[in-house]
């Protein structure tokens, strides 16, 4: 495979998808079908590239801008996989009236652009371009939150846009501070912000400036990743957004922001030692896990419940990043498994909302009786997110806790374990309330099991497969991704 082709194969399909929908106004349904066929090209490219990289191939490179190593390939795979699911199950293919059709078109155009910006963020070697791409994720997704134009959704999107933009501006401040450090200590100007060059020159960076830069970077990208105390936009945005967008934001957008932190941490660690970044990450991680898991019990809205669970899981992944190679391995596995489980849960929540017309857990009680297939899959997803076997999140959480123990953080790991138990209890309580009981009067009972249920079951099948035994290529890809960051 030629190196340049990989980048075309990843980035062009979502752009073609957006263009098709934009130009194919008159034949919206056909455009939506073509769109359903474009993103799988990105997914296939990502899978082939990931497989080659897991087999020991050198990173794909093209110019000074494009670079796909094992870490990038892992995230490209996640982004293209989850976004394919969202596009397949998103509005548009069944839309009937004109209003629904116009909204479906809006959704498809921006969802494709959103996918392209996330793929750009993980396939570039220039940390400045990565920043530009992550800023663009905010811009391309903000208009989709108020797709149904309720006042609460508009308010949530404003909050998301403002907090996200300010956060990401602080990340740019950190990027510029690191650039100033690099160019003042003799770095080559034409390769400024080029990740491999920055990594090679990291030993000569001024440690104090590097630390200052990392504080800005952590606050900035941490805002996008939903790390506490910068997480305040997240529950509103995830609850108000249409379900496929919630799936994309929670499943992969948060992970891409943590990817940016991981890339920068590798540079700063070489400049200023690991203890500074590790300590900061652990403090933020424990706070985030606490905010996420302690908020779960009080939730009444099932999408907000899922949103707070995302905060908890991002905290766990952040904790792993601070625990050395074993921890990074667990964190990456955790992010991948969370992407699968949470996106399935959000997509299913969209079906629940369509049937029960209520955001409240109490309003959707009796789910299992009304929608046996959706209810069953949602139960499986919730069990996975609560960290129970046989799903992959159980495995990654065990590995995380073990890494914490091995790294000598006994007390902190004990606190994390206790918070995990709280999260498990709260999720189990809410799941029980949602599944059982009698559905409200007027809710249609029974559902047809079609192709969309098979698509929704796919990520859960992956979760169970990895949970039982990690497939060899996945194991290899993760190990090589960890090596990239060392």
């Amino acid at each position, binding site marked *: 495979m030629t190196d340049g082709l990989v980048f075309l194969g990843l980035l062009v399909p979502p752009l073609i998808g957006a263009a098709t929908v934009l130009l194919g106004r008159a034949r919206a349904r056909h455009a939506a079908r073509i769109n359903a066929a474009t993103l799988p090209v990105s997914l296939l490219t990502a899978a082939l590239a990931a497989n080659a990289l897991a087999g020991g191939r050198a990173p794909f490179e093209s110019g000074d801008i494009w670079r796909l190593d094992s870490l990038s390939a892992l995230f490209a795979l996640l982004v293209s996989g989850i976004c394919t699911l969202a596009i397949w199950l998103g509005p548009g293919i069944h839309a009937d009236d004109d209003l629904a059709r116009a909204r479906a078109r809006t959704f498809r155009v921006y969802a494709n652009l959103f996918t392209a910006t996330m793929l750009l963020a993980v396939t570039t070697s220039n940390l400045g371009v990565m920043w530009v791409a992550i800023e663009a994720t905010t811009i391309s997704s903000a208009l989709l939150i108020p797709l149904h134009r309720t006042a609460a959704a*508009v308010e949530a999107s404003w909050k998301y*846009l403002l907090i996200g933009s300010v956060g990401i501006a602080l990340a*740019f401040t950190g990027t510029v501070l690191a650039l100033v450090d690099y160019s003042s200590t003799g770095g080559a100007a034409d390769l*400024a912000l080029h990740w491999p060059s920055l990594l090679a020159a990291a030993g000569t960076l001024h440690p104090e400036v590097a630390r200052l830069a990392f504080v800005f970077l952590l606050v900035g990208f941490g805002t996008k990743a939903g790390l506490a105390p910068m997480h305040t936009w997240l529950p509103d945005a995830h609850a108000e957004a249409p379900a496929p967008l919630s799936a994309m934001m929670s499943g992969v957008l948060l992970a891409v922001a943590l990817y940016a932190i991981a890339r920068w941490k590798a540079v700063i660690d070489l400049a200023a030692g690991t203890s500074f970044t590790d300590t900061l990450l652990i403090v933020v991680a424990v706070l985030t896990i606490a905010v996420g898991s302690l908020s779960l019990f009080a939730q009444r809205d099932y999408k907000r419940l899922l949103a707070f669970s995302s905060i908890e899981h991002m905290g766990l992944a952040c904790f792993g990043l601070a625990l050395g190679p074993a921890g990074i391995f667990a964190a990456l596995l955790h992010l991948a498994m969370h992407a699968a489980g949470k996106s399935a849960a959000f997509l299913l929540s969209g079906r629940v909302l369509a049937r029960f017309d209520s955001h409240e857990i109490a309003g959707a009680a009796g789910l299992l009786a009304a929608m046996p297939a959706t209810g069953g899959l949602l139960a499986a997803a919730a069990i996975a997110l609560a960290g129970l076997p046989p799903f992959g999140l159980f495995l990654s959480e065990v590995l995380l806790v073990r890494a914490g123990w091995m790294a000598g953080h006994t007390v902190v790991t004990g606190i994390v374990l206790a918070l995990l138990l709280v999260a498990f209890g709260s999720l189990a309580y809410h799941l029980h309330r949602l599944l059982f009981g009698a559905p409200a009067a007027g809710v249609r009972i029974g559902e047809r099991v079609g192709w969309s249920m098979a698509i929704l079951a796919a990520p859960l099948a992956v979760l169970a497969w990895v949970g039982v035994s990690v497939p060899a290529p996945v194991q290899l890809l993760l190990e090589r991704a960890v090596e990239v960051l060392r």
Partner: protein
Amino acid sequence: MHPSFALLTMTGASVMLLSTLVVLWRRHIPAYISAFRWQSLALAFVAAVVAWHTGARELYVVAGLMLGFKGMLVPSLLRRMAARFPGQQELQPLVNTEASLLISGFLAIAAYEVARPLTAVVSLPTRGGLPVALALILISVFVIVNRRKPITQIVAFLMLENGIALLALLGAYGVPLIVELGVFLDLLLGVLVMQAILYRIPVAGAAAPLAAAAAAPEQP
């Protein structure tokens, strides 16, 4: 090196900081927009001075873009946005004017403290302005948190971006051109999306949400 180079960049940086302070003590939204315009012109001036000093042609391009985008296009977009919302006054900041000025003073001192390792490591003649750029960044964040009107928050956000651009210019003679172009694109699209969302607030209901738009949702 031309002896006036450091002086000229420092003057530009100071004008930029002063225009942020305008937002602290004025209450009239058009005044904020023209303060932002003056700040952007000062930024373009600094970029042009650095381009003249280093002879880097791409920096002239960047200076031109700053002049066109931030100095002319974005202020006119902001004026149109401001005209759509009733009430040109910023009424209820969380912290009053006197306290705001005091806090900004503390932030400026903090910026000098934070910038100490930075000025030690940078050897460019422009390094004297680095604390000014950091102060600009910190004060802009404070204004965003302190103010309630969406339009004031947008202006302060744009001032924050100007501060970062100033930091890059003074500390490293700018970011790579491709990144700079991406930043411009993001900035323009970002302002358009912010405008689109603000315009949707009245669409979601009738007249009442208009008042809500003016008061804005609770902030971070």
